[in-house]
């Protein structure tokens, strides 16, 4: 309880009136933030509020149009990420910035590899130091293996190790827990504690309020590129933060259940895949929201992609309505009214180099075209309709998707499959990385879809979301369905136990 009063502590990093303008967007307008040693400052804001842009300015990837950065009282200009690293600023970026074909050790040290006295890379020292770092964050991987052989969670751990490999006084984490499982998130929290004790100044960006209240000391809130509020975390509440973020109060509870279950619309029997999943069976009814829960890597996405025809199952059957069908491509699935909104929006969802309107119309080409000829007026009408429903924030419909923030890209992705007017829609992590306001919109929208008689499959790794939204939940672990819960049987504990396989151990 000997924590010194924060205001007495001189700030180790001050950002003074930073502005950054992109064509058509004022991503940051004259924001000032201070970071203090030994403290965690949470940065919150809606999608596109400018959080990641600030991180990139701080790490020398972007140069600010106005304003300056002061580190320990000295004004700095970072012409490149190397400058920022030298000055003692390190970051875990929102995008994974790693190299599949290089070894783990090299991924950690690239750019500042240990050298011998001839200036050549000292592989032995590098591997040793990498092992130490990985050990520190609880990762049990051999530093000499190639990164491409790692799962997604381990990759994220490597990114964290990389941030720690520089002896920095300022550590920035941009949504570090988005891809991590429960256990790994706990370890990350401990690490943050260690860093605090070591006197580092930490900037922590997250959309998850529970973790903000758990680990942050201070907060700063962005809205549309402006700083709209800051203070000590123990003097605020999530309601207040949300109000600051969106400029109005938001219902944080899930929308009430309005959907009614209709007749069975889809039946999956013994679906299997040689390497990804095995013997999955379930049924789905009109108006139902079926949740799929599991830890990252449980094989849910693979299962959904097999249903959608991206990959071929090795066994099992799929029935829609009364008809047994074989879907051998996404084109097939879309034609039969089954669509899949992928989890990886940058790679699988959006075509970022094309305008919003082209993206939205793409899966519906057969509807918007006649005899193979496209009709642009129809495409714009379609895009207008669905972007309005999802409250998309953009400048115009012919703007490239690449220029939108992460959350708004996700909206385009959802709009694009909704526009095909499906009967069954699979949403894979539909709210991953999107802000609270947008989240609520997506949730309300899912409810609306269900009450209109659509069947919804929702893959999610967030327990509150699963419990708040799903009518029924199937839990997957290591490619197998290990539990099924009706709405009244749902509890966070039950889900975690099933997903992590703790039950098994008790039985054994």
């Amino acid at each position, binding site marked *: 309880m000997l924590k010194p009063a924060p205001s007495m502590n001189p700030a180790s990093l001050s950002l003074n009136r930073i502005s950054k303008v992109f064509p058509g967007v004022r991503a940051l307008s004259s924001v000032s933030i201070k970071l203090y040693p030994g403290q965690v400052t949470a940065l919150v804001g809606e999608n596109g509020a400018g959080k990641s842009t600030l991180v990139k300015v701080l*790490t*020398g*990837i972007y140069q600010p149009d106005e304003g300056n950065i002061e580190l320990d009282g000295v004004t700095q200009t970072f012409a*490149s*990420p*190397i400058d920022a*690293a030298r000055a003692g600023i390190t970051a875990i*970026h929102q*995008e*994974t*910035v*790693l*190299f*599949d*074909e*290089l070894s783990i050790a*090299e991924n950690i040290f*690239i*750019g*500042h*590899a240990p*050298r011998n006295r001839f*200036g*050549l*890379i000292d592989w032995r020292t590098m591997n040793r130091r990498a092992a130490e770092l990985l050990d520190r964050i609880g990762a049990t991987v051999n530093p000499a293996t190639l990164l491409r*052989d*790692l*799962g997604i969670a381990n990759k994220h751990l490597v990114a964290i190790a990389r941030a720690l490999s520089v002896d920095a006084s300022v550590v920035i984490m941009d949504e570090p827990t988005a891809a991590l499982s429960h256990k790994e998130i706990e370890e990350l929290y401990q690490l943050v504690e260690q860093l605090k004790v070591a006197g580092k100044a930490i900037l922590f960006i997250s959309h998850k309020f529970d973790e903000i209240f758990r680990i942050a000391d201070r907060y700063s809130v962005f809205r549309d590129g402006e700083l709209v509020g800051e203070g000590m975390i123990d003097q605020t509440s999530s309601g207040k933060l949300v109000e600051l973020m969106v400029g109005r109060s938001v219902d944080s509870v899930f929308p009430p259940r309005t959907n009614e279950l209709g007749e069975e619309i889809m039946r999956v029997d013994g679906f299997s895949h*040689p*390497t*990804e*999943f095995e013997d999955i069976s379930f049924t789905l009814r009109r108006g139902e929201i079926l949740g799929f829960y599991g830890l990252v*890597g449980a*094989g849910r996405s*693979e299962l959904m992609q097999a249903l959608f025809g991206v990959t071929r199952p090795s066994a099992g059957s799929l029935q829609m309505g009364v008809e047994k069908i074989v879907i051998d491509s996404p084109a097939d699935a879309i034609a039969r009214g089954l669509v899949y909104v992928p989890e990886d929006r940058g790679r699988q969802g959006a075509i970022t180099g094309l305008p919003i309107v082209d993206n939205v119309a793409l899966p519906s080409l057969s509807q918007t075209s006649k005899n193979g000829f496209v009709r642009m007026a129809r495409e714009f009408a379609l895009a207008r309709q669905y972007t309005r429903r999802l409250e998309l924030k953009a400048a115009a419909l012919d703007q490239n998707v690449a220029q939108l923030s992460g959350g708004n890209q996700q909206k385009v992705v959802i709009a694009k499959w909704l526009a095909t007017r499906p009967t069954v829609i699979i949403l894979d992590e539909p709210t991953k990385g999107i802000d609270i306001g947008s989240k609520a919109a997506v949730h309300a929208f899912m409810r609306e879809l269900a009450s209109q008689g659509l069947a919804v499959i929702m893959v999610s790794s967030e327990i509150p979301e699963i419990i708040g939204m799903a009518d029924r939940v199937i839990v997957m672990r*290591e*490619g197998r369905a290990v539990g099924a819960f009706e709405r009244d049987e749902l509890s966070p504990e039950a889900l975690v136990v099933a997903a992590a396989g703790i039950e098994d151990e008790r039985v054994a």
Partner: protein
Amino acid sequence: MSRDAILALALIAMIGLVSVRFPGFASPDSLLGVFNDTSILIILALGQMAVVLTRCIDLSMASNLALTGMCCAMLNAAYPQLPIVLLLVVAMLIGALLGSINGVLVWKLDIPPIVVTLGTLTIFRGVIFLISDGQWVNAHEMSPAFKALPRAEVLGLPMLSWVALICIALMYFVVTRTPQGRAFFAVGGNPDAAVYTGIDVGRTRFNAFVLSGALSGICGYLWVSRYAVAYVDIAGGFELDVVAACVIGGISIAGGIGSVAGAVLGALFLGVIKNALPVVNISPFWQQAISGAAIIIAVVFNARAERRSGRIILRQAETT
């Protein structure tokens, strides 16, 4: 088994096959001859590898070689007393300069490398015509020392082979032990991430182009002195052979993957084919089709070797 090992085996198998019909082919002398003959292709493939690793491509290498070669030949014809070592350095510098033109355009103007080098491919050739007025430089206009260097034997191996060996060794060193060499892999493997790690993507690509240019320059001198003639069209179309050698050697055209051993083996693979066909008395008209087929087979094969079955996490789940 690694891709390089498989390729090496294929190479040995091919040599074995040829020597069934013509036993002399597998003799050390003959094999050294093949290596010597392939030296220039090897050196060029090493340069191309550096460029391809950074997710670029250099189609101007053969034109660079020809232009540098012509410069060397004309210099030698005009000043026969110029020391050859100096000429070799000049060749390297001219090559590097030409390479840096590619590099600057890619770096500073962000023009796609294939466009830049497609442009310089024709420009460099045209410049040869301009500086030489279309005239050939023939053997009798070159000084004896000029022609002697690639042929001079040291420890039973011609200098041409030695130069290739030195280039291989240096390149291996650069690629595995220097930060710049590792940056080639990083830039090609994930350019966006490279920016975040503080690697200057543009400058790294520039360096790769300068390197490939310098190696092309050296080859320019070697080619002209070896064949004792310089004219506009030398090494015409050779750029595709160089790319083919890299691809056969398992260097991913998408960047970030490749090894020095791969580049050397890929070049040797083509070299053996080219040398073996006349030896086993296959009609010269079959040559082109056979090397085309070999390239396709190698690519199919490489792709098979690269294909992995399932993702790691779930493979582990399978076994548990």
